[in-house]
């Protein structure tokens, strides 16, 4: 080993690596890629499906960042889609609304365009202003009511959620279960409640629901009282809060998904749900990425998702379909048959979610 030569080699290598890193950041395809996505997304002529299939055969893949529980619904959907179009492989990444939105934003900021489709209850609200979404048109959305699709085409509804109170049936007998928001203030529930911190579906949306349904003044007073109950902030999805109720770590959980409770209940878990009125209604909305690398496959998937065929899979797996043509497997999961009223917070969430998060942090996270 001769000193200078070795050093020279090392420095050469370091410079090469640095240059490599520097150049790897460049060379991204520019505006033409985005234009292609827009063309595919807005195409409405008769040969649309054939054109999409032809394009998708070349693309071969589809990347979907989803908030939908993987083993319950997302993977079965992906599998069914793959059976229909065997030449497309669906790649899933699962996270909460905030996580998937942040992942996409960070990738776009570093000019790495991997994602085709992204969904969540508040994801599109977070992303719409960024310019990272591409409005699309799908004929399958025609039958959907106005509140389940975006007028400018930024999103369409995949499925619906209703956020309820879950109880561990061994720890909280039916007779003792809280039935109203006021019941939650009973001192006996102090330290017994948990909720998810997820901004799109957890505690902040609970805050939003209370502030809307009770009004600013009464709602704030109520939340102050509720803060005294020492609710456990679980830094994870509603699904995992529910798992911890099943495991007996928490007797009660707020703002969990009623279809997931039924899914666990059907599997024999000691858990049940109670609607606290009004229930927070949520729409899981799916959007197309502005620089989707596989736009044809993505559009095929959107059509499939909104179609009766796709919605049937949501239904079979215990989810609540958004399509007016497909009823829920257990109709009681929905308002009306389920004897509860729901307040869909999506429109207000777009503008007020940040405020709700602030209120939540101030009241329920010490020193937020």
């Amino acid at each position, binding site marked *: 080993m001769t000193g200078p030569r070795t050093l020279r080699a090392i420095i050469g290598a370091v410079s090469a690596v640095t240059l490599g890193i520097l150049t790897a950041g460049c060379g991204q395809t520019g505006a033409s890629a985005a234009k292609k996505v827009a063309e595919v997304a807005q195409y409405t002529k008769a040969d649309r499906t054939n054109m999409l299939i032809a394009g998708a055969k070349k693309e071969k893949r589809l990347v979907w960042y989803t908030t939908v529980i993987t083993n319950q619904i997302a993977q079965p959907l992906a599998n069914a889609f793959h059976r229909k179009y065997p030449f497309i492989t669906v790649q899933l990444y699962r996270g909460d609304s905030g996580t998937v939105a*942040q992942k996409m*934003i960070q990738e776009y900021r570093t000019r790495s365009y991997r994602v085709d489709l992204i969904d969540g209850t508040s994801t599109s609200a977070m992303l719409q202003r960024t310019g990272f979404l591409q409005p699309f048109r799908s004929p399958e959305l025609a039958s959907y009511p106005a509140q389940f699709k975006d007028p400018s085409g930024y999103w369409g509804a995949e499925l619906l959620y209703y956020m309820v109170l879950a109880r561990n049936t061994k720890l909280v007998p039916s007779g003792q279960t809280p039935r109203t928001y006021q019941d939650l203030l009973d001192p006996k529930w102090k330290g017994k409640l948990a909720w998810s911190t997820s901004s799109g579906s957890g505690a902040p949306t609970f805050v939003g629901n209370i502030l809307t349904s009770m009004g600013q003044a009464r709602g704030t007073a109520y939340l102050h009282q509720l803060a005294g109950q020492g609710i456990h902030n679980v830094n994870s999805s509603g699904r995992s809060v529910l798992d911890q109720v099943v495991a007996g770590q928490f007797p009660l959980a707020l703002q969990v998904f009623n279809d997931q409770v039924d899914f666990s209940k059907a599997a024999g878990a000691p858990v049940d749900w109670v609607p606290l009125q009004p229930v927070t209604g949520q729409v899981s909305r799916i959007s197309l990425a502005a620089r989707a690398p596989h736009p044809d496959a993505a559009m095929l998937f959107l059509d499939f998702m909104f179609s009766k065929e796709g919605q049937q899979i949501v239904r079979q797996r215990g989810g609540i379909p958004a399509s007016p043509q497909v009823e829920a497997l257990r109709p009681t999961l929905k308002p009306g048959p389920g004897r509860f009223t729901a307040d869909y917070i999506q429109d207000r969430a777009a503008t007020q979610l940040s405020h709700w998060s602030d209120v939540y942090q*101030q009241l329920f996270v010490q020193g937020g």
Partner: protein
Amino acid sequence: MGVSSEPRFAPASVTARPRTERASLLSPRIVMWLVAAVFALLTVPPLVTVVQRSLYTTDFIGEPGTFTLDNYKHLFTQGASLRVVGNSLTLAAGATVLALVVGGTLAWVVERTDARGRGVCRVAMLLALAMPYVLYAMSWILLLGPNGPVNQAARHWFGLGQVVKPYSLPVMIFVEGLVSAPLAFLLLAAVLRNMDPSLEECAQVSGAGVGKTLSRVSAPLVTPGGIAVAMLIFVRALEAFEVPAMVGLPGGVTVMTTRIYLGTQRQPPDYGGAGAYAVLLMVAVGVLLALSARITRRGAAYATVTGRGFRPHRIRLGRWRSLATALVWLFVLVGLVAPIGLLVWASVLPYYAAPGQIPTRLLTLHNYHAVLGQPALLGSITNTLLIGVCTATAVCLLTAGAGWFVARTRLRGRWVLEQLGGIPLVIPGIIMGLGVSAFYLQVPIAVYGTIWIFVLAFVARYLPYGMRYTGSGLVQIGRELEEAAVMSGAKPGRTFARIVLPLLMPSLAAAWIFVFLVAGKELSMSVLLSSPDTQVMAVSLFDLFNNGQITQSAAFGVVWTLGLGVCVALLSVIARRARIEIQG
């Protein structure tokens, strides 16, 4: 210690052969500035980014918006921030006291008394030091949780309700104190070892009892060293992230580090607010470290090390001997056996329940199958190892060169290296994570979302450790060998490669092992640097646990502990072969 005198002159090559060196692209001067440039690229951007972000608003995709002082205004006017800072100080103070009491008592027992189990205690402390904090925090939450053995026992035997609230400030103090105890032990043991025992002997000969000897002679002697140790532990507790995040956040107890974390988790991220807290925390850490350096310097006046050789004399405890031995075993039980035991227990459960609550026939190895069958978790293991190896190697290479320039040459501007290498001392992990991730999101270099961003952050954060190891290593190597090489015509590069590096190898190997182990268990930087595609073990475990997959995270923890055990054993064999001593 073979400490050579301060260098008076540089090796001849550096000053006396200007002509040939100037011709070469690789003159020591140029190499030094190259190393300095690397140091600067590593340490300055994160620091500057954090300060910059604290002075700007953040737009909805997380880019800096317009200049503002609001972030600081909020920091100093909101009652909430007072509580956050108060929580941080309470946690740090409480944990420091507990760590000093536990670590100090045991250090005294092991170093200065004739209690039994002293060897056991040393090994236990080293093992506890290697345990990742994520694992430790997790097992303590399970031990003290609503469904855990402690509350179960209280319910079962005493008919009490939940006696311990697991997600609370007292439990945070307790767990943080316990995880800091091994460090307090090792540092205080060193202080005690360096103390002249003849003074204690004098006291005892003059008729003072154990108590009086301790309070009148030993205590004043170790005070300066003790204060320095206390401040170091206080700073580390201020910077701590694992315990506050896992124990504090679910119960709504926020400290400065977790407040910074929460800021980054919002959508859009609140880099401004997080940045303001970060600047405040860095100022606090900087002031404390400067103070402690001053105390240590002044402590030299107490001269605990004298020229006289001293024989290890141990205080005879008499009837207190069994109590001291019991204390050792109590620590082994509470600090090691209980948490690891519970981890193993939880890992074989179908669903989480305290011991005794579940029939043994239900015990299963399913969790291990589930964990080892998940490609993402296996990927996180490879990533962790790869990042650890790259980080440790880079730190060693960089600091070997830098240490040599600082200690051995008289090149102008070599102080720059020292200064740059010291910057990360005031950047706690969570802030390094914040700065590095924010910086590489802003500049179009494609390291974000790859494992290389970990290496960049880790190398920067651990440069000071490397500098400390190579610095103390170089001091022990006499200069004659290098001078002989230069006299025989070797150029500086060759001298460094053939003479200095081999001699420095033991220190470098120790540094490598230390950095590798620390990098492997670190969460505070990783949690902000990892992306869904680039997970490391600490973050995987943190997520698994947050997701409520308790039994699976326990299985993952056991696998990790076993792997760590194998690593530590292997490395210590290598270390013993090479006669290297690994110090904290």
